[in-house]
């Protein structure tokens, strides 16, 4: 009873709360990091150094008026933000946050579920999120929203190919689709796949930027051209849903990157004796640290690089990243057979 029902529920609640809090503070961190890069201070008014700013933002979004445009398709307009948010959240079901923990004499696996097709599950769930973007743009009955959503979905589909190809190389190295199995394969090999597959890691990083619509690929919401992209007509809580989904997706790709390329919950340098104290830090702390590092790279890139033009984006995706990813698969396969 406890292990079958209550434990997963508790874990789901913990993960949900953790993700939502992280989203709130990533938003604050993003504003702070950008401000520091541009030699500003960022939000400073709410609480010391603006630490309570996220609460103020949430309060604002809650009390804002929720507008449905006239002549919009009401049913689809309401459903679209939910269709975006739900896949972003359920993807966390297979992410292994830690190894097995022992608490009150109970062995608790540090994940919600270990599905043996875990990685494919993450990919397929991510594919569902596209609907929310297309439908949100279409149902608003607005040019900007429709153009933004078409751009966004085209971008997502294009870069999904390259990203999936990089995941194929990881699957080839690990020999399993289970997320826990992939981490254990890295433990067995003694190398994190990020170091064995630097090309795949790089392509994954670029593809992750594009798939989460982050700068320098934030064309779907290019303010100068498209007002705000597919969520132009949304306000209040529904807008907050889109916002939440975008950042939750950032966290999803970061956790997947951590699991696949950076060894998940494993501590670094397990075989260097004078660094063995690193093993005392619990696994979930390593996991969070790595995820946070990846998220920070997102913010760093946003503050540093200018936005791509649309044709440049497509050329980069189709003419460089996809062939490179396929070549990487071929080379990995050859090395696996020969070595």
């Amino acid at each position, binding site marked *: 009873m406890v292990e079958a029902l209550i434990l997963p529920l508790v874990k789901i609640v913990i993960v949900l709360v953790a993700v939502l809090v992280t989203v709130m503070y990533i938003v604050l961190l993003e504003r702070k990091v950008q401000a520091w890069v541009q030699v500003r201070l960022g939000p400073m008014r709410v609480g010391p150094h603006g630490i309570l700013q996220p609460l103020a933002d949430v309060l604002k979004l809650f009390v804002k008026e929720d507008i449905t445009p006239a002549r919009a*398709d009401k*049913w*689809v307009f309401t*459903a679209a933000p939910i269709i975006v948010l739900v896949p972003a959240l359920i993807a966390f079901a297979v992410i292994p946050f830690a190894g097995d923990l022992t608490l009150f004499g109970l062995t608790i696996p540090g994940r919600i579920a270990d*599905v*043996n*097709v875990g990685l*494919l*599950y993450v*990919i*397929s*769930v*991510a*594919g*569902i999120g*596209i*609907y929310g973007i*297309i*439908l949100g743009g*279409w149902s608003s009955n607005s040019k900007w929203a*429709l153009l933004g959503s*078409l751009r966004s*979905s085209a971008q997502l*589909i294009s870069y999904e190919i390259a990203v999936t190809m990089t995941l194929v190389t990881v699957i080839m190295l690990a020999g399993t*689709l289970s997320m826990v199995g992939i981490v254990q394969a890295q433990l067995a090999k003694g190398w994190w796949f990020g170091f064995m597959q630097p090309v795949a890691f790089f392509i994954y990083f670029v593809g992750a930027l594009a798939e989460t619509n982050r700068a320098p690929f934030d064309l779907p919401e290019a303010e100068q051209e498209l007002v705000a992209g597919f969520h132009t007509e949304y306000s209040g809580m529904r807008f907050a849903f889109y916002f939440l989904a975008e950042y939750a997706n950032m966290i999803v790709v970061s956790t997947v990157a951590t699991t696949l390329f950076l060894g998940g919950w494993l501590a670094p340098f397990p075989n260097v004796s004078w660094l063995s104290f690193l093993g005392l830090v619990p696994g979930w702390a390593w996991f969070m640290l790595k995820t946070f590092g990846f998220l920070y790279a997102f913010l760093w890139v946003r503050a540093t690089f200018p936005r791509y033009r649309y044709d440049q984006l497509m050329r980069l995706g189709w003419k460089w990243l996809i062939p490179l990813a396929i070549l990487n698969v071929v080379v990995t396969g050859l090395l696996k057979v020969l070595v």
Partner: protein
Amino acid sequence: MAEAVAFYICAALILGFGALVITAKSTVHSVLYLVADFLCVAALYVMLQAPFLAVIQVMVYAGGIVVLYLFVVMLVNLKRPPEAHSDPRRLGRLGVAMAAAVLVEFAAIFALGWAKPASAGGALSPNNVEQIGRALYTDYLIPFEVASVLLLVAMIGAIVLAKREL
């Protein structure tokens, strides 16, 4: 018992969404119901211990094919509804024949087909990704290669058909 409840819920959802797909007035709504239908079918696959197929169903059907439909529905921005002039009686005779065939099919299943429930612990493990891969790359290698050629042909065909000038 739990399995039965899950099956009947899934079946009701599949048939309900299927009926909505073919009756919805707006084509976009129809596409949405199709996605929901495919997701329920994926749930059914999980119950049948085919998790790989369930995930492929979501990834290829819901995440790929239906997105294509949605794109086309949005591109084909109709000025007048396509159902405007059609004669419902035109296909009457064919419809009766089809209905008869379906009735015969149902009757045959009822009369002949009450199978025993599948024996658990057979040769098929629930973690059968490896088994599927092995079958695809050994016994079904030639169909597999033919399927890849089919996909290539479809890709080229779709580009040739849809592009304005090459």
